């Protein structure tokens, strides 16, 4: 390369520019990093690591898709009940126990699988744990007595009033009042048909056959209707209530969003500089929009709850209120960015204000407004979940409470799947509508 003498000023100038840019491109990441470090300290990230309970995480993850069956004997009466998740509506009828439970007079044998065997005996119980030995419990005068290979491992928790054993196969607990065994099995139990439904005891091919040509289980209706009813009224999962709640949530979002759009349309006109010559009103409207937007929907929900009480209408009114603020602002901005030529063309024919708005303004802003509204519809479906939790309606209430009780994780999973599917469906629906309504008039 031929060395041509460059003007040193130029080369310096360029070098300085590079130095400055280098400072910037190192400085910005450094600043971000410094901020994150500050945040990590102020959020006590280090302490969190100690507090985090990974066993909870595994409980949660497994409970998402596991169910447990409680096998309980009231020691005083000897009554045995087998119930899914310990709930009354999940209780097996005494004559139709699952095949891993065997009853023989006073003795009940529970096969937890993998060689784990629990036996309820009169006045005590026994648990055979493979590779460990037999845990034997007797009721004595002064409490429960435990006989087991020593030393006791930490998965056995014993006092003289209570013994509990936790293994991979299940959980077992004994007090003077009752003996209880929990067996964990994969799947959402009784998701389709609960124990009170005759269809629970059929296999899938049997169900299909019975739906198509089987004898009527209930003489008053075809089997397929009976199945639908049993599914819909499933007392464990209450699909009917859940779907209703989901529907209520979507309804809140729908009413709130479109109601707000209808209200914000005229208000937006009045708040647009080029539509509203009267300044003070415009200014006042803008501040009103700012105010109702700044107060979150949740606060509005609480304010409205006094007047309208709990329920979906209150939720949709709260969404409507917040979105009126957002739409008012966005619509008025859209109106201010219109092409004035079209309005002028309409004006020159002697059209009045309404007609100018209808023909000069609406056709050009409609696509923008519509796509904003549809975008909000989708995000409000999510928002309605939260509002529903406060206002006592919809899937949000079911979900937050199921989480807060911290035991119905399979319900939580069910609701979450439903919500995600619904929001995704709303997303595609609004995308489809947007394409349909905006691309082709």
């Amino acid at each position, binding site marked *: 390369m031929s060395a041509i003498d460059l003007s040193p000023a130029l080369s310096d100038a360029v070098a300085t520019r590079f130095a400055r840019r280098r400072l910037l491109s190192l400085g910005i990441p450094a600043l971000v990093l410094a901020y994150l470090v500050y945040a990590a300290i102020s959020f006590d990230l280090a302490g969190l690591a100690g507090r985090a309970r990974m066993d909870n995480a595994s409980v949660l993850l497994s409970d998402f898709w596991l169910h447990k069956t409680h096998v309980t004997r009231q020691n005083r009466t000897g009554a045995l009940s087998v119930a899914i998740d310990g709930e009354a509506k999940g209780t097996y009828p005494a004559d139709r126990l699952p095949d891993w439970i065997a009853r023989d007079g006073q003795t009940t044998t529970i096969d937890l699988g993998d060689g784990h065997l629990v036996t309820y005996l009169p006045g005590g119980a026994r648990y055979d744990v493979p590779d460990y030995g037999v845990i034997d419990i007797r009721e004595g005068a002064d409490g429960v007595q435990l006989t087991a290979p020593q030393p006791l491992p930490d998965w056995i*928790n014993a006092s003289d009033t209570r013994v509990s054993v936790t293994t991979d196969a299940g959980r077992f607990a004994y007090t003077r009042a009752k003996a209880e065994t929990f067996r964990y099995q994969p799947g959402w139990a009784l998701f389709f048909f609960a124990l009170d439904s005759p269809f629970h005891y059929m296999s899938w091919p049997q169900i299909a056959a019975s739906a198509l040509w089987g004898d009527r289980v209930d003489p008053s209706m075809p089997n397929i209707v009976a199945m639908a009813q049993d599914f819909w009224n499933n007392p464990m999962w209450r699909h009917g209530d859940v779907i209703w709640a989901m529907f209520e949530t979507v309804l809140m979002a729908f009413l709130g969003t479109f109601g707000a759009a209808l209200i914000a349309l005229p208000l937006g006109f009045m708040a647009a500089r080029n539509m509203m010559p009267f300044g003070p009103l415009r200014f006042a409207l803008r501040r009103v929009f700012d105010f109702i937007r700044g107060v979150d929907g949740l606060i509005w929900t609480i304010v409205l709850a006094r007047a309208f009480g709990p329920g979906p209408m209150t939720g949709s009114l709260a969404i409507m209120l917040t979105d009126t603020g957002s739409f008012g602002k966005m619509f008025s901005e859209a109106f201010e960015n219109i092409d004035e030529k079209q309005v002028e063309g309409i004006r020159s024919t002697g059209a009045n204000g309404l007609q100018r708005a209808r023909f000069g303004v609406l056709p050009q802003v409609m696509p923008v407004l519509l796509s904003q509204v549809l975008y909000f519809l989708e995000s409000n479906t999510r928002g309605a979940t939260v509002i529903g939790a406060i206002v*006592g309606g919809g899937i949000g209430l079911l979900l*937050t409470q199921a989480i807060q009780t911290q035991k119905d994780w399979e*319900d939580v999973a069910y609701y979450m799947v439903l919500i995600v599917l619904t929001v995704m469906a709303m997303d595609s629906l609004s995308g489809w509508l947007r394409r349909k309504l905006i691309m082709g008039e």
Partner: protein
Amino acid sequence: DEIKQFNIGIMGGENARDRMTSNECYRAAIEAELGVPVKIFTPADYDGVIQGLLGGTLDMAWLGASGYAKIYLTDPNAVVPVLTKQNMDGSTGYYAFGFARKDSGITSVEQAKGKSFAFADPNSTSGYLVPGAELTEKFGKLEDFFSEVRFSGGHEQSIVAVANGDVAAGVTWADGLGEWEDGYNSGAFRKAADAGLIDMNDLVQIWQSKLIPEGPMVVRNVLPQDVKDKITKLTADLHETDKACAYGVAHGEAKDFVPVTHAEYEGVVAARKLQESNS
């Protein structure tokens, strides 16, 4: 004048679906009695029910004593207390219990000094108001005595939070009858233990409050007198007519529902007024 529908508010404590289920029989009975549609609402927190009663959108609810006091202090004429729960032993009260994990070594409130402490809900009588007032009286400002005072959001959450070790100690309610290992005869411990949420072996009791009056069932004051009477009678007779239903409504075993008046709650109202000022 006539009423067109009748709305019942049910406070938190269980998940919404279970609350609906355990009160369904009660709802049906009232509907049959009044001949108008009856609906149950289960807002996420105490405040939802209270606002509903104040605003007149809910006609009746079972409240905690503190919740009643809050309504009374906001608007003395909004509701009247009519019934309360009578426990198996004939008492019409219960206790707040302080508790901690057994393996934490804490056996009294003094030992929990400088550790974190959980109340249930600011509107809860046994979960905050009474224990808050009593402990403050004994140990001074609780924010200074404990390292952190937190509201878990409900009794169930307090128990789980302590059992999980998220907080060192907390309070919740129980009737104080029966055995600790079973979580007493009724109360939040019993529910949690029955549900398999906790193992009572893991917890110890560290404190017990004075007797707290059971919360009242209130009806809105402006309801027609005959409606109030019908509801009161139906509920008062529930233990005689439908035992299983009464169990669900009373959140567990109870002897009966018995009449009550505002006078029984003046103490709680006073405690609440006191707490207000030292917030």
